[in-house]
């Protein structure tokens, strides 16, 4: 099982998992901030300004590539860990009482991650493919004459099933973050009696706030709270 190189020992894999995880968390901050512009409820103008900046800025475009690499690394690393962990227990227990000693979500990061991945594929298809590849002509221009990604949101979130899937995706993200956030610190060795409560608080707060904000977007649009 021991292998060398970039994904060498079990601990190096763990560091990668933590670093890529924290990197993805930092992306979530940018993403949720930018998307929250829709709550200005100005017909998507502020939001579209931001979106256009993100789409045109060369630094952001470069970071986007890094982001994809980070995401793929997180996934590949996760899959490697998952398969090794399965192999570490070839015979399962007939009776296992996991609830006695761990939260279900901390032991289900692979499944939660997979759910998030499915969600992500759908999400990229809905927005990233349109914004970056096929173009947004279909939605015309907004009041300020900008490309109208917001228009795409209005269309996508008109479908209740899609809204439901997005909300479920956000739930997966919530559970995934609830363990992942503080776990990343532990993996990097950042465990200190004095600061642990702070990390735990930040982790829980982040896991609640970010997915809730995300989930509010399709819900608000579907229910017509914003137009």
């Amino acid at each position, binding site marked *: 099982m021991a292998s060398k190189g970039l994904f060498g*020992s079990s*601990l190096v894999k763990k560091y990668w998992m933590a670093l890529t995880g924290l990197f993805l968390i930092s992306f979530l901050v940018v993403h949720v901030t930018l998307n929250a512009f829709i709550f200005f409820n100005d017909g998507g103008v502020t939001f579209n300004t931001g979106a256009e900046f993100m789409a045109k800025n060369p630094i952001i475009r470069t970071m986007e590539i890094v982001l994809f690499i980070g995401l793929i690394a997180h996934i590949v690393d996760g899959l490697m860990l998952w398969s090794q962990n399965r192999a*570490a*227990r070839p015979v399962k227990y007939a009776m296992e009482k996991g609830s006695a*000693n*761990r939260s279900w979500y901390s*032991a289900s990061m692979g499944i939660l991650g997979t759910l998030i991945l499915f969600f992500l594929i759908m999400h990229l298809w809905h927005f990233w493919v349109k914004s970056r590849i096929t173009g947004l002509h279909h939605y015309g221009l907004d009041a300020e004459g900008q490309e109208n990604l917001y228009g795409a949101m209005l269309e996508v979130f008109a479908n209740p099933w899609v809204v439901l899937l997005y909300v479920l995706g956000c739930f997966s993200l919530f559970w995934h973050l609830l*363990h992942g956030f503080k776990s990343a610190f*532990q993996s*990097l060795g950042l465990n200190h009696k004095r600061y642990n409560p702070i990390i735990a608080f930040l982790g829980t707060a982040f896991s609640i706030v970010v997915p809730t904000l995300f989930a509010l977007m399709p819900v608000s649009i579907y229910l017509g709270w914003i137009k």
Partner: protein
Amino acid sequence: MGNMKLTLKVWRQNGPNDNGKIVDYPVNDVSEDMSFLEMLDVLNDDLVRKGDDPIAFDHDCREGICGMCSLFINGEAHGPGRGITTCQLHMRKFKDGDTIYVEPWRSAAFPVIKDLATNRGAFDRIQAAGGFVSVNTSGNLVDGNAVPIPKDDADKAFDAATCIGCGACVATCPNGSAMLFTAAKVSQLSLLPQGHPEAKRRALAMVEQMDKEGFGNCSNTGACEIECPKGISLEHIARLNREYLVATVTKE
């Protein structure tokens, strides 16, 4: 003498290459003063008298310190109860009519020898890879008080050093990881000045051996800490993570 009747569902497996299975055994006359292992003694006594093969299980000191006893009881390492090993688990934790699952530690690195006894030699090999201070026996070492050690460090080192090497952490971990065991030793020695000179080498070598043995990867579920009969803290895993990170980044 006893007043409880129980049904045991015990894993029986003839040898390492055998397919095992769960077998049901009714046990009568169980007294609440018995330890779990004494209850198994009673069952085995009965099996021998009937000419059956008694259940093999590891045990030795029966006072919670040697680390030889194991057993996954009703889905938990060392059974219900915290801070105890199986030999310290008493039958008053159960009630009349209970059905109890008894299984061996499940880990690719701990192959079953027979029934409930497993081979935990992997732990010895991890220890041999670096779990020591390279000091020979000598009648001429510096005085034990030559290097003062802050009490907090000494106490923390002791907390890590209380590991009994039973393997409950591996058995409990959903990933079958041996990080708590390995970390306890690395952490103990890295907290003490005597362990510093070899700290990096030790962390690298012990983790390498741990990986070779086929244990899974730590994903910080914290289950090990809860089932550890000695309550060894996840803090020690974080310390190993730190030590190993520094060692990896700075090695030449």
